[in-house]
């Protein structure tokens, strides 16, 4: 059992939790992920590590309430326990030798973009952070990104906060201004990463994407998380989750990500009804 030592709602649908997991905290690096089960009947869900504290022995996760399991997780309070928490899995984000980087995060993907932003900043690289959200109420980690970057562009789709527009608009502007990036690192919805890659391809800038595929074991055993990269089948859990964005087949990946959407919607409704019944 793993204790929830801190819980904070970042916005109405995104929650931060700090989990007591000293062995994982000792080794975790930006880009890696954990797999958790809320309870004994739970499914295994992968979440990318949002932060870690090696001294306190805690690992931070930030999740959006999208389905049954994240709803159940969000129902847990500080001091309670979750059944399983395993990691750090996958390969760490490659940061060696990077001098100037643009990190592009979208929505809850910003939670995953943050630790690598922080690491690059600590390593002395010049980091430009571009973070995008649908609307003002959904903005997360604004102060954190500001502190870990030398320039930050905050975008909202509806213009309710920051600059109105898409992250690709901001990235294009920064590139056009003459910023020469060694690499662009982008984490967010698949469709956003696809268009970031399309843009950076035009400028021939190496682009790393973080793939949040459907997984079960997360150790290379089941092959559920596979995707096509440069014409070859790769497993996000052991070969990734980071890949060269210019080589990823996004259309196929987006289709695979939708495999269980109907099931998930039904399961989520079912859980909400159960929780409501409990409250009554």
């Amino acid at each position, binding site marked *: 059992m793993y204790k929830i030592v801190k819980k904070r709602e970042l916005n109405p649908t995104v929650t931060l939790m700090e989990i007591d997991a000293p062995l994982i905290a000792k080794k975790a690096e930006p880009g890696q992920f954990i797999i958790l089960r809320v309870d004994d009947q739970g499914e295994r869900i992968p979440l990318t590590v949002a932060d870690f504290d090696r001294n306190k022995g805690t690992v931070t996760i930030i999740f959006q309430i999208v389905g049954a399991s994240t709803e159940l997780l969000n129902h847990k309070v500080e001091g309670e326990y979750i059944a399983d928490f*395993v990691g750090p899995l996958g390969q760490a984000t490659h940061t060696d030798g990077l001098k100037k980087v643009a990190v592009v995060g979208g929505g809850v993907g910003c939670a995953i973009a943050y630790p690598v932003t922080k690491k690059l900043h600590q390593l002395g690289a010049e980091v430009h952070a571009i973070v995008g959200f649908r609307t003002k109420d959904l903005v997360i980690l604004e102060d954190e990104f500001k502190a870990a970057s030398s320039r930050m562009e905050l975008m909202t789709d509806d213009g309710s906060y920051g600059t109105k527009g898409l992250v690709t608009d901001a990235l294009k502007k920064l590139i056009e201004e003459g910023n020469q990036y060694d690499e662009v690192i982008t984490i967010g919805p698949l469709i956003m990463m696809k268009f970031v890659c399309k843009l950076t391809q035009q400028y021939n800038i190496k682009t790393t994407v973080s793939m949040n595929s459907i997984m079960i074991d997360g150790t*290379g*055993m*089941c*092959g559920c998380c596979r995707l096509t990269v440069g014409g070859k089948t790769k497993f996000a859990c052991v070969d990734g989750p980071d890949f060269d964005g210019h080589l990823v087949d996004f259309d196929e990946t987006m289709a*695979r990500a939708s495999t269980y959407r109907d099931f998930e919607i039904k399961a989520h409704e079912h859980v909400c009804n159960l929780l409501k019944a409990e409250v009554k």
Partner: protein
Amino acid sequence: MPNMSLKKNEMPTQAADVRNKNFSEVALGYSEEQALDEAKRCLHCKNKPCVTGCPVRIDIPEFIAKVAQGEFEEAYKIIQRSSSLPAVCGRVCPQETQCEQVCVRGIKGEPVGIGRLERFVADRHNELSRQKPDQPKGNGRKVAVVGSGPAGLTCAGDLAKKGYSVTIFEALHLAGGVLVYGIPEFRLPKAIVQKEIDSLKELGVRVETNMVIGKVLSIDELMDEYGYEAVFIGSGAGLPKFMRIPGENLKGVYSANEFLTRVNLMKAYKQDSWTPIHNAKRVAVVGGGNVAMDAARCAKRLGAQEVYIVYRRSLAELPARKEEVEHAMEEGIVFKLLNNPTEILGDDKFNVTGIKCVEMELGEPDSSGRRRPVEKNGSEFIIDVDCVIMSIGTSPNPLIKSTTKGLETESWGGIIADEATGQTSRKGVFAGGDAVTGAATVILAMGAGKNAASAIDKYLTEK
């Protein structure tokens, strides 16, 4: 007087058209009468060929003699001396190619039903015995076992009986390895696996779940920082193989590992499970091993109308156990033999719509001694399916190899280990099971775990 019937007592089973709609166990087990009758078929040969045929060398005639006398608990104790998992082996061992293959009764008629008797004895014990195993006297020395499948459980059990303080490190949230994620409930009920693991815990074995060795902790950390004097690696088979044909990443294409893990470990067949699975109507399973049979039979039980086994050689070359093939056929699985997939077809939404195959014929024998299948020109055809399960084997997981300096592996990734002892290229590190041999059977993994346990004991005693 021995019972000279040429035939084994038949195993009672659920009727085929009933069992292919449920996940309850197919074989129901001998009654006491059947067990007594079958035990009397053993001739108690002096040279005991059956014992030589058993990878863990159970004293088969001795336990059968006790069954014949009705002393079932005594029979259990004899099996237990050599095997840590009798209820499991009685169900999933390929006895027909091991102990029963060399049984003298098999020369004329059927061999003694050794596996069925083993199962009877183990089930009887589990049902009736409340006796706790004797706690071995501890010697205070720590051994780590990586993986809680058949190799790891056997190695851990044998070492614990010798007094070692054993900790098993399991990557998943539940112990049992392939016995819980791979082999389906209807062939090996999970309560039986749990019972075997509980008895190991009673012996003092500790099980730590959620421990992916190579990630959470390395082998070196286990030895240098945590004080384990020896390590046994029984991490099992690894990454599923695919055919590298077009369409393998469509929605509705599974590796057998994924499909079986969803069904068995994550209980996707139960109403209250949160783990989803494709609600397929027509399923093609590619491959001909036991895993392919398991996947096909699970798909049928989940409600598929048509389930095909697509295999590129003929019936004679099917690597699955004969009994599994027969059960699958009885349950209505359709065998498309001498057919090889060339492409998986999909619609514009990336859903599987069919599998394109080509007919094969058998040519000259290849390196495996089996006749090589050759394509028949112009024989392509399409089977309409909405789900494809690839069951063509696995390649070893690189997690341990890549994080353990000096651990040598074969070019295909298997850990190099001495066949008799499991000794690897690293001092104090032993390995066995699928991690060494590539995909094989439960009992071979158990044999390797057993050999490694005695080698570890010898190594630590002499150290």
